[in-house]
């Protein structure tokens, strides 16, 4: 019992997480993706840029021993491309959520702690970002930005287009985090331990950072887990439509290259599609399990 008490809220939550069915499924699926991302260098039978299959068994070849998931239209090995897509997907998901949570926690925290018309103003701003057709705006920005950078120093930045997508997904993905942070701050603002801290003269900045924020963390972590999944999905959709980074190996890009010949070579579209599905499902289940684990009232 004593040992249990000394563990932080996050660690207690993680202990409970592995006891929920959703949590364990989510952990396994996310684990698969993370392993693929870390080990793609050793696991992949071919280099992702290796088109030598065109000289061997040919492009659009059905799954075979040498190429377990077949080859695609350009003669790439589908399995290798899918494995090398995992780090890209995780980079997009995590990167976008880092940006989103920085903005979201700041906006939601200020709104919830300050209250009054600051709160009103910030929440209207949040609602604005929730209502606008974000995906359409991002599509337009990606295309227009790729024109603006031509001829400037920005052009020399590696993977510029992927980074643009990551930043955009973050800049437009913060509203759910802000809403939740605000709700948690409202709930905790007048909690007894916060009032106590205020009574002994703790500075507001310290109250926020040391007392309120750690207690708001569990809820925020759940929203971030959900957000990683939806960022991965958004990047896949952008790439599928042909607005992705041509220099990155991503699942959406694979779909974009191969979708037109779905009838001839379905494996080269199905494989990346299923990879995206596993990632999104994994993070959704993880979020589900986390919210059960962190919220004792929801457990039965």
């Amino acid at each position, binding site marked *: 019992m004593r040992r249990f008490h000394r563990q932080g809220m996050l660690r207690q939550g993680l202990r409970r997480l592995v006891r929920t069915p959703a949590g364990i499924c989510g952990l396994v699926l996310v684990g698969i993706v993370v392993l693929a991302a870390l080990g793609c260098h050793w696991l992949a039978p071919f280099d992702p840029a290796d088109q030598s299959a065109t000289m061997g068994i040919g492009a659009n070849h059905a799954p075979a021993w040498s190429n377990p998931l077949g080859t695609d239209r350009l003669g790439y090995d589908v399995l290798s491309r899918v494995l090398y897509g995992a780090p890209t997907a995780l980079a997009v998901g995590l990167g976008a959520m880092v940006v989103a949570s920085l903005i979201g926690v700041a906006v939601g925290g200020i709104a919830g702690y300050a209250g009054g018309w600051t709160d009103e103003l910030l929440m*209207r701003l949040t*609602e*604005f970002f929730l*209502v*606008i*057709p*974000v*995906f*359409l*705006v991002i*599509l*337009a*920005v990606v*295309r*227009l930005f790729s*024109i*603006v950078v031509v001829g400037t120093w920005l052009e020399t930045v590696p993977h510029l287009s992927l980074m643009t997508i990551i930043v955009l997904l973050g800049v437009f993905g913060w509203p759910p985090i802000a809403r939740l942070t605000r709700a948690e701050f409202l709930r905790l603002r007048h909690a007894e331990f916060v009032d106590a801290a205020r009574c002994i003269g703790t500075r507001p900045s310290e109250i926020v950072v040391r007392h309120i924020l750690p207690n708001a963390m569990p809820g925020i972590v759940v929203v971030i887990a959900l957000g990683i*999944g939806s960022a991965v*999905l958004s990047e*896949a*959709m952008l790439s*599928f*439509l042909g607005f992705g980074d041509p220099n990155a190996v991503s699942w959406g890009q694979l*779909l974009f290259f191969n*979708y037109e010949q*779905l*009838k001839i070579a*379905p494996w080269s*579209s*199905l494989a990346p*599609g*299923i990879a*995206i*599905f596993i990632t*999104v*499902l994994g993070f*959704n*289940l993880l979020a*589900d399990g986390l919210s059960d684990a962190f919220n004792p009232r929801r457990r039965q």
Partner: protein
Amino acid sequence: MRFIGRRAAFALVLVVGVSAIVFFLVNAIGNPIAMLISGQPNATEDQIAALTAYYHLDQPAWQRYLAWLVRLAHFDLGSSITYNQPVWQMLYVWGWETLKIQIPAIIISILISIPLAMTAARRQNSRSDMSIMAGSLLGHAMPTFLMGIVLILVFAYWLGWVPSYGAYSLRAPAWHSVFLDGLWHMVLPVGMLTVFNTATFTLLLRASLIDVLRQDFVVAARASGLPERRILYGHALRNAFIPVLTYLGIAFGLMLATAPVTETVFTWPGLGFLYINAIQQLDYPVIMGETVVIAVMLVGATLLTDIAYVAIDPRIRIG
């Protein structure tokens, strides 16, 4: 009523905000004429000057924005650079094709999700509840395009029952009827959107029904001997439907915003297809017009949700 008035005023602010963002975004990359004409060495100085004057590109951006807003207020969105048609007319024609698959999908998924959620919520943690939940979680997380790919592979290529692309047959319509031919082409896209929405609606409605079925008024209704059907579909459903209603606006927005994906998967001639083309060819009036019209539709949907809210829940009317 004050509530609705406030929401309507905010909706107007939202639309103007979106229009400003889109306008200045699109104008951030400079003179579109110079960019589009750079591939046309035959264009003379006079022609360039004439086009610049025609699109008022010699004026500062804020002046053009105000002029554009005024024209917007008169329902004039200008004409497309690439199609040379009024943008309004294009949005009307292509928008019809988009709504044609989205509205039936929403209606069908509500109709399917109500009995599913009811079955699941009435017997929580039973086997039927577990399978409905698992199916919904899978359907909710499955990317729409993967669902589309699977549907096309199975029903179009493998079984050959329905066409995999387009809204109409290119040659003679099936069964000699344009109407039936259209319906036949709608099956797969509507099916894909329906699966996704049904999954989400079922998850939401189940959670909310479980909450409502525990409440005192349900117990009271049971105790007073009301038939179970009336308790479930009359009293509980009406109260449990509010979260779904809130989500309806979001679901509609999500479908409109991801229309480019849906319509690329099924090569469907709708707003999403139009948008992708407009972005690729830098067709400014279409990009701006379509974004604003979609924003208006989204804000309108949210406003309708608010009104429906008031109709269902009298507490909001007072508070």
